[in-house]
């Protein structure tokens, strides 16, 4: 799996709270991605078993709103996402992120 910019943004949103399911538009807003990028990516992640989806139960209080499909990282997805994201800043030269969130065993003055 190659960590591209958009993929990194989606993973960051999903991994921020792995137990919270997101629906598509929610993810689009949070990761600031257009639908044309997001959905193929979700499909790929799902194929690789990193993301799981489920339909929301029809709720009477939804005001006639059609049920949504929610996406969530699988256990394997959480593991892979954390691993990839931890490697990402160093590989992409994003030193600001390293400074803000030092990984274990990294000196705080990693710049």
């Amino acid at each position: 799996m190659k960590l591209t910019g958009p993929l990194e943004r989606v993973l960051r949103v999903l991994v921020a709270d792995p137990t919270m399911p997101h629906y598509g538009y929610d993810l689009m807003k949070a990761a600031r991605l257009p639908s044309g990028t997001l959905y193929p990516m979700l499909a790929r992640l799902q194929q690789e078993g990193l993301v799981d989806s489920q339909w929301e139960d029809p709720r009477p209080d939804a005001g006639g709103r059609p049920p949504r499909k929610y996406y969530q990282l699988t256990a394997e997805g959480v593991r892979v996402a954390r691993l990839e994201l931890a490697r990402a800043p160093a590989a992409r030269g994003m030193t600001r992120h390293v400074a803000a969130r030092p990984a274990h065993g990294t000196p705080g003055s990693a710049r």
Partner: protein
Amino acid sequence: MSGTRLVQLAAERLIGAACRRLPADVRAERYREWTAELPAILDDESIRPSWLRGLRALAFSAGISRATRQLRRSARAGSRHTRNSPWRAGALRARVNSLAARLAVGLGAYLVAVAVTVTVMSARPDPRGWPFLLLVALGIGFDVFCLADIARARQVRYLPKWIWALICLIQLPLGGILYLCIGRIGPAPAVLPEDTRA
């Protein structure tokens, strides 16, 4: 009918059209998933002014169109799926593989086009009659089809894309026929770059 409702209907139509590219077994579910996002966009209070929500919903549908194209491509790479529409697969891409055979088909098509044009022009020389206009419309339609095909193609054979486009434009029936017979590669290759990386 309110404007929002109208936009929602239009966006649903767009999504429906995009979903036709998907295999039949996932089409209905995808359609339900994506149309269910529309109310969320149209009721999104954080988008201001309110008419922007309609635009966002339409942009969402346009993105879905791109998404289904991508999904279709990766599905095709994964397994040799039969395509939904024979037209999209390239009905004009005759199922002949040797260059000579393709050229013969092209020549035949060109002769037919010339014969039709000559017959129509000699029978009805009036340049404002409907047969003439029909021919012009056909010519323009054919050119647009060829240009669109060149624009969508991942790759074309022998010449750069822009030269093929020029040929199609300059030599009205022949250029397009030549492109379809010689320059067109057809559907995307089985393995795509984004799927080859592990």
